[in-house]
């Protein structure tokens, strides 16, 4: 016996009917690692944290991220970073600046040349991290110190993330036509549904009917 459904497609799947033995627990990494995604609404706005995606590698993560985070709202660029490539400071209270309380030591055996790092700040708990700038450093620790010197006063933060630029998969300028699909899909906008006009017309007709009775 197979499972009976109102949906003919489901009937064609011949799913077993009745009690099944429990499914074996899914194995670790069956859903892959996580990547963190940053998106930019317009060319001039900073990249802002959008959320995570699960993916087997950065290219697939980028495709998922594009679907998940740029499908429904304006977007002019995406960055994707493997979660474990991001160094995270502790969280401060909303009225404090994390740079005032958090200290790290710069390791001695740092190596040249300088590498480029991206710095993200969280202004307030519950909001999203925003890109504040790029700095050159020889370690994450040094990057933290330089970020403090460069950004702490002007952009106070309750939490900061730092990541090597080379670990960020960035959408390319020459591919920018990939962001141009939104205007074709007006049916996903609430404004596409002129429901009030129809209700008004219906009510008027009902009134007319009542009068002529």
């Amino acid at each position, binding site marked *: 016996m197979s*499972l009976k*459904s*109102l*949906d003919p*497609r*489901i009937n064609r*799947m011949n*799913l*077993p*009917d009745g009690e*099944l033995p*429990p*499914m074996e*627990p*899914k*194995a670790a*990494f*069956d*859903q*892959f*690692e*996580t990547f*963190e995604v940053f998106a930019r609404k317009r060319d001039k706005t900073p990249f802002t*944290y959008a*959320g*995570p*995606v*699960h993916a*087997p590698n950065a290219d*697939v993560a980028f495709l998922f991220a594009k*679907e*998940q985070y740029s*499908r*429904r*709202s304006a977007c002019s660029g995406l960055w994707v970073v493997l*979660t*474990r490539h*991001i160094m*995270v400071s502790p*969280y401060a209270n*909303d009225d404090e600046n994390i740079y005032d309380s958090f200290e790290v030591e710069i390791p001695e055996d740092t190596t040249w040349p300088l590498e480029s790092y991206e710095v993200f700040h*969280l202004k307030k*708990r*519950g909001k999203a*991290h925003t890109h504040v700038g790029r700095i050159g450093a020889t370690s994450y620790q040094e990057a933290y110190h330089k970020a403090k010197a460069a950004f702490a006063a002007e952009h106070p933060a309750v*939490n900061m*993330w730092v990541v090597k630029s080379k670990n960020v998969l960035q959408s390319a300028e020459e591919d920018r036509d990939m962001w141009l699909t939104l205007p074709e899909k007006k*049916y*996903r*906008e*609430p404004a*596409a*549904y*002129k*429901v009030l006009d*129809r*209700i008004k*017309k*219906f009510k008027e007709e*009902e009134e007319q009917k009542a009068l002529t009775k």
Partner: protein
Amino acid sequence: MYGGGNTFEATKAEDLEQEDAVKLAEFEARIAQGEKIEPDDWMPRLYRMQLIRMIEQHAHSEIIGALPEGTWITRAPGFRRKLALMAKVQDEVGHAQLLYSAAETLGKSREEMLTDLINGKSKYSNVFNYPTYTWADSCIISWLIDAGAIVNQMANSKGSYGPYCRALERICAEEAFHLKYGHDSVVFMATGSPAQRQMVQEALNRWWSQIMTFFGPSDKLSVHTETLMRWKVKMASNDECRQQYLDMYVPKIREIGLTIPDPHLHKNEQTGQWEYTEPDWEEFRKVINGDGPCNAERLGVRRMAEERGAWVRLALKNPTAKYVRPLA
């Protein structure tokens, strides 16, 4: 779409006296000040467990809720409705992704959550254990079940947990289209031919009791509920949500000439509260525990997708992967 408070009985009472008193006081002070909790913060076990349970259920409801509506994509009347319904169902699956990740920041992996869904260990919104007989059923879900979900989600988006708030902000923005699309498709039928009107009225008759159970039974008042409300995990009681919903939607249903199939439904002008026939909570409990018209089909379809897609995930698996939970 579907953040039903429906199965919101509390997790097993955790003894708060076992928690570190100083940390607990700091945690409560932060919430009292209106600050959000972020994943790295210390939090009581009860807070963590209750949020995992709630966000996970919300995620399962999105992914299972896509099934009764998705079944009508191939048979949607017209190209425009088909495009819109596809976009809506895709949104719902996207919401599940966002919510699984938010729950994951609390320490439960996506693998565990999906296993618990398929093995019936965690629940989803009970309304999706009922079938969609006609196109009109899918329209009623899009409008009136989504509307219920929005009442819930707007309340929860003011909660205390940062990652859940961020996910809900995105979800609520997308839901605006769902609500408008659902309303439009119901109004279209209700103001159409006599056959269309009859079809949508019948769908409303089938779904009304599910709508009334959507927010769950009246909360038992316990110390526990009071704690979860103080921690801004539970933002409104089930009855408050139901009353707010009736305030907003009863007039909208009636203005298009539909009849709500409850002769006792009326607003008591003295108390300002809606009075109604209690839905069949016995049936609700029976169905949520597995014995409903579509429970087996919903989980069967999910399990089939899981099992038949396993080889793809295996082929893509990266042997050098190291797990860390999502950051925020």
